């Protein structure tokens, strides 16, 4: 490549040629001028490249793999973190909100009425044992499922039904079970409940809405299936399973149990002052912890409430 000086002298020589224009015939001048301009632009471009190359010789290279220049302070950026359960919960609520569901948070201390009676568990019924509830000395219950909020949700939004609308609400919350803690069991975990009530609401719609949620959540059209379940507060009741999504390594064969759902039992509607002959609805509830564990391939649920920065700063 030519040096900067050479290009500069070439450029000077070229500039001198412009003087010839005057000596040419009028019809020749245009093409002659264009030719000169073309050569000048080329030389100017060459000059810029040559000057950059000359400048580069004066610049010391740096070690791009090092965290700082020699003798310099290592730059530091302090980063915070959000709890993965809360991040995931916000995402879940976001999808339901876009589907038109209101959000109402669950309370962490409740009573026997909301935990059982309002959900059609007869008093003293053995089905109550399945929930391994904690109790306070006053008989209050840290809820064992977010379904505890169904009665409140139905009462709060009942007026929407009377105005010709529907009840559409999701209820996230922290729930508690008196069971031994191990890698897959926590006594404290998060659930999200959903309630939908209106006229002519049916089970096909329930399955459609829930499939749509998981399709959106996993960004993929997923197969679903059900298996019969038993909850006193819904009938029919089923457990919903989804095909293992591709993002979780699914190859179209495995199934994941995601949530329990069903058509709201007429007694539950009646308890909230809603006429079950006029309105019907569906409800569901599923764990948030499991979504996060699947997403990040976590093997131990105990990390979530461990408060350990080693774990949290990964998020």
């Amino acid at each position, binding site marked *: 490549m030519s040096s900067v000086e050479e290009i500069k002298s070439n450029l000077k020589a070229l500039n001198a040629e412009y003087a010839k224009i005057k000596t040419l015939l009028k019809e020749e001048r245009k093409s002659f001028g264009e030719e000169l301009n073309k050569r000048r632009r080329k030389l100017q471009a060459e000059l810029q490249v040559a000057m950059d190359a000359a400048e580069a010789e004066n610049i010391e290279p740096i070690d791009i793999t090092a965290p700082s220049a020699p003798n310099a302070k290592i730059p530091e950026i302090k*980063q915070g973190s959000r709890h993965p359960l809360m991040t995931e919960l916000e995402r879940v609520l976001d999808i339901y909100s876009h589907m038109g569901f209101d959000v109402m948070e669950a309370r962490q*201390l*409740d009573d026997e009425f909301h935990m059982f009676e309002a959900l059609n568990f007869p008093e003293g019924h053995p089905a109550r044992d399945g929930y391994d509830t904690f109790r306070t000395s006053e008989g209050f219950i840290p809820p064992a499922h977010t379904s505890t909020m169904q009665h409140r949700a139905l009462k709060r939004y009942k007026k929407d039904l009377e105005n010709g609308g*529907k009840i559409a609400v999701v209820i996230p919350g922290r729930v508690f079970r008196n069971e031994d803690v191990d890698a897959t069991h926590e*006594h404290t975990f998060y659930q999200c409940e959903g309630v939908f009530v209106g006229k002519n609401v049916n089970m096909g719609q329930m399955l459609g809405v829930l499939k749509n949620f998981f399709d959106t959540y996993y960004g993929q059209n997923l197969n679903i299936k059900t298996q019969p379940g038993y909850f006193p507060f819904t009938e029919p009741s089923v457990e919903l399973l989804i095909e293992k999504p591709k993002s979780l390594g699914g190859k179209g064969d495995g199934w994941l149990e995601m949530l329990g759902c069903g058509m709201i039992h007429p007694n539950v509607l009646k308890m909230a002052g809603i006429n079950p002959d006029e309105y019907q609805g569906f409800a569901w509830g599923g764990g948030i912890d499991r979504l996060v564990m699947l997403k990040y391939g976590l093997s131990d649920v105990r990390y979530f409430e461990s*408060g350990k920065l080693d774990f949290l700063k990964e998020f």
Partner: protein
Amino acid sequence: MKISLNEIKKLVPAAASVETDELIKLIGSRLVEVEGKLNLAEKYKGIYIVKVVECEPIPDTHLHLCKIDAGAHSLDGPIQVVCGAPNVRKDMLAVWLAPGAVVPETYGEENFKLDVRKLRGYESNGMLAGLDEIDLGDDHSGIIEISPHHKYTDAEGKEHEVSPGDAFAEAFDLNDIILDIENKSLTHRPDTFGLVGFAREVAGILGVKFEYKNEPFDADSQDARLEDTVSSGSPQIVQKTATHSEDSPITVTIKDISLCPRYSCAVIELSDALSDDKYLTDMDVFLAKAGMRGISKIVDITNYMMLMTGQPLHAFDYDKFLKIAGSSEIIIRAAKNGEELQLLDGKTIKCTTDDILITANDIPVALAGAMGGASTEIDASTKRILLESATFSLYNLRKTQMAHGIFSEAITRFTKGQPASQTLPVLRKTISLLGGKLLSVVDEYPSPTKKNVVKITTPEINSLLGTDYKTELIIKTLENVGFTVSCDHEELTVTAPSWRTDIHIKVDIIEEVGRMLGYDNIPLDFPTRPFVGATKDSLLDLKSRLRTILSDKLSAHELLTYSFVSSKLQENVGEDTDDSYEIVNSISPELQRFRQSLIPSLLDKAYTNIRAGYHDFSLYEINQVAKKSYGKDSDNVPILHNHLGFITLGDYYSMKVILTTLLCDLGIKSPVITELKAGSLPYLEPLHSALLTVGSSDSPLKIEFGEIKSTVRKRLKLPETVSAFEIDLDALLSNIPDVSASMPELSKFPSVERDLTVKIAKGATYANVSAAISAALDSEKDKGIIYQITPVSIYQKDDASKTKNLSFHLEFASRKKTLENDEIFAIMNTVSKNIEQVGAEIV
């Protein structure tokens, strides 16, 4: 619950022609979750029935050197096996685990595989198995002996007597699949806790009518009536509910029919055929498949009947009973508080009034539904038994189960609510299996339950399911599993069979139809609803904003910690434990009280993280807290508060900047900071803490913040200065201003910058000086002055120094014009004057 597919196929012939995987899939999608399956054919592979043809003791050992005939598997002559069992002898039929077979007891775990090896110098090919090794019982006293007359049906349907070389699995119906059923979702279906009921459901799922083949357990059939029981059993004395006979040997009195709706029982003189023999039986295998063990012929038969029908039975030694009673009066009643009873397992329990007792003339002989008493236990010398088939209140039995920790197969079934209708038919069948001589039967059933009838229409069914099923299909589906249906066009009158005590209302029928025809066949759809936007919950929205500010901007880490804390932690931080809701059944003392504030939990985790090597961090949590003193809401449940708790490893000032930045981001620009006199957070050091107040409305926001008391830190083993704040989020929410109203007007004109250092007495406050500067600039408001005062440094030479220097950076401009030199001079003059008035001087 374990279910044998072979037993199901015996009861439902149509199931035999369905592929096993398809059958399991259908059960899973239309009846109950199948948690696992065990292929017994794999488990019992390489195991044969053999004849011991030679058996010589090995000198100086307990061992025998045996030669066995294994039929087609010993074509080269008898095979040598060393056996240590005391009962091994020439000519017996035994069970041989050939080399290469896995010992069934270890199957699925360590999978111990047999081979050819030497024992005391003698080659042994595999082993002769005991009941425990083959995983069909617990007996370890000897090897299994097979009766030479044992019959079985082979795969082609031909009946054989066993002969050496026969595959053990084939001879004992072990080419089977055992399903592990999640019974929680069958809580409302007592009938499915018997194989007959389970099989009936399988028939329904397959769309075929369930027919009783070999086992007449149909509680609703004509031949289940008492008269038939009697005529087939040729009893000497019979007593019926309606006609009490004076000379009857036993009477049954139910004191409270809500505790025991029906009590059927029989007295049987046992036949010799019931004495136990030494052979392995089909019954042993049947029980083992269900996870039970053979005990004695009588108990095995009652267990068999329970597994088939769901109806638990109990056998008393009738002669012992008579001796205790002094008469033949059976009284069923509630227990008295503290009443004692020694049970079969040897334990003596103290009853509560929720327990139900079977008494011999008022003397307790059994804890109803749970366990028999020791005093009437049957044994080898038992001649006559009193056989009970009854039904009890599931509510009481649930309490019995909890109070005495009894979780037997029987009580598990009783607590689902076994129907009263089946007690007598089951008793009848049991009697016929036991044989012997029936002496008496009593059936006390004061108030027979009526069958449940539900009226429903086809459109009602389809409306809830979202289907388009035809009336004929619905009727057939219900009739397949024992419902009777009459119909008038699309109006159905459905009568539930007696064992379906769970059928009461329309949805009960809808569930049956939907489930049996497959929920997965329901077409997916979406609800229609008005186009109304969902409203956003403002508190949830705030929580989300807080996470953005705290985690993304202020570099804090969000934690979730347990809602329950220890009394010790509360005491350590100075909280009043009596103000906390106490968990009476907590898992551990660490989780005993519902927390009153979040900071103690965060401090606890700060310790964990400091130990893990972190020394510069901020932690926060957004969660609910409760105090008894908050009171209760209109539902009469505790009022809960939503809090944000925050801690940072740093002093008061580092906490203050985080807190004020947070509030500023939320639009709260000028909070008032005052001394913290008597705060509500007992763990804050009052002299290094402050109260921040926002708003003067009815509900001002008050935030206590500052350093944790050194005594608290010491108790929590926190070495460094830690500061904290806790905010009530409802109060915060009501004090966040409308952001659009707080946008300041900016100046288009150049601004003036001045640095200023002020010397002032050590004890004077920063606020005094900065307020003086502000006041000076505020007084120029008519010129449209806008300004910013930034603290630069606070310098004090040493502790002994009487003064300190405060440095400020001032920036101001006019919104109206470019400030002239003389105007700037005038403003700075006012600043100087104001500073001097508060006793400071400009350096």
